[in-house]
């Protein structure tokens, strides 16, 4: 999985998205991925709850320092294994609900725009273990009609799906390790 993501991210470096005005086309895309983990929700939440901790559980992220910890408005800079950086801002954080949500301020090499996301840890089915749900809403990287193939809707969905799957699978591995 890690290789798939790195490959995807690598291919995207060419498709650097112009930062600046958040203009976008009218068709918003979404990705929703979830994974069941054989560990208590609190233990899983403890691994991911800190906004700057994504480097500890996502295999494609080398570093992720945040400006103001888990305070709304805090900004983290992700340095990707495949090259490039992504800037994200925390928009909501709830220890009680075990979830946080954030927005990309600069997508770097990821071919999306106007990206927002929520990650949440819920009790698993029948109160056994945990269910982690990671969801994102975004537009393709190319803001106008007739996008090139590396910046179209499918490319955006594929990139985000790859990032979520790789992250969740690695989180499961870490959380279930004895």
């Amino acid at each position, binding site marked *: 999985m890690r290789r798939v993501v790195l490959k995807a991210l690598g291919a995207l470096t060419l498709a650097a998205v112009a930062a600046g*005005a*958040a*203009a976008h*086309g*009218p*068709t*918003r*895309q*979404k990705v*929703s991925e979830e994974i069941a983990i054989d560990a208590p929700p609190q233990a899983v939440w403890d691994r991911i709850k800190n906004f700057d901790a994504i480097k500890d559980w996502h295999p494609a992220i080398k570093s992720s320092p945040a400006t103001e910890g888990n305070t709304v408005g805090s900004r983290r800079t992700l340095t990707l294994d495949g090259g490039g950086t992504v800037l994200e801002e925390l*928009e*909501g954080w709830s220890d009680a609900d075990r979830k946080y*949500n954030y927005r990309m301020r600069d997508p770097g090499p990821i071919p999306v725009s106007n990206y*927002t996301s*929520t990650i949440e840890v819920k009790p698993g089915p029948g109160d056994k273990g945990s269910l982690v749900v990671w*969801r994102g*809403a975004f537009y393709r990287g190319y803001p*106008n*009609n007739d996008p090139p193939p590396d910046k179209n809707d499918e490319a955006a969905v594929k990139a985000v799906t790859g990032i979520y799957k790789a992250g969740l699978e690695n989180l499961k591995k870490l959380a279930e390790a004895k």
Partner: protein
Amino acid sequence: MRPRRSARAALAGLLASTACAAAAAPFAYIPCQASHEVSVVDLETRRVAATIPVGRSPAGIAVAESAGKAYVTNADGKSVSVIDLATRRRVADLPAGSGPVGIAASPDGRRVYVADWYGNALLVFDTHADKLLATIPVGHAPAGVAVAPDGARVFVAERDDDKVAVIDADKLAVIERLATGEHPFALGVSPDGRALLALNVVSNDVDVFDLPAGRARARVAVGLAPYGVAFDGARAYVTNQHAASVSVIDLAAGKRIADWPTADYPEGIAVAGDRLVVVSWMEDCVQLLALADGLRQACVDVGRNPRGFGQFLSSR
């Protein structure tokens, strides 16, 4: 053929104007952007009564009951699909610029107005012939469209200019511009025609303008990313896409009086009798909330990525 049709249209118009459209509207026509269809939800049985294939990536809708039709903007199809309400079938696809999104019908059902996002224009269609009447140049990234109850003025959100264009429906020209907060997307006019609301999706607030003067009266802070608006007499209900909530606004006071939780990514919204109908884009369902207190009643599964951007209620 012609006289019969207009008699029927007149009758339908009479029904629509006498019965409060909201109270007598048991069906919600919801465009589903990822499954390229309109889900028709029966609000009484809480089931999908019909699924109507339309063009690519439908987002906006305007039910024009007095014309017996609904109009759906296909953002990627660059067209407007026309649905016959009696048969619930698509009867035509009209070319509609390069990125149609927002749409509204005139109260008499004779026209529909379509915002062309990429073309920076408002397209005016005649609903009798289903033909393009006029193309009015407007500002950048025109999104939501609303029409005053008397039909004389049409409002278009110029999202990237932070303005609302006011259009004279007779002259088919922009006559004024109102300054808004950041990135107005959806617009709504209260049923009494006295208030225009502009929902600013970046500054997370709602501008309230007095009509017909167009004077700014209040700027009301709401939740993150306000996206849809509905009215019920003295109140407005605004969906906050990123906050998963509905903000309730007291129009006379110009104040937010409550926030009610909803399913994720609420978008289109309408008042139907004693319920709020809220489209959840993330959950692929249409949620029903009690109008009195926001209590959640049900979420009816529909097609993928439902939007319901516009007037989606119909009595049939």
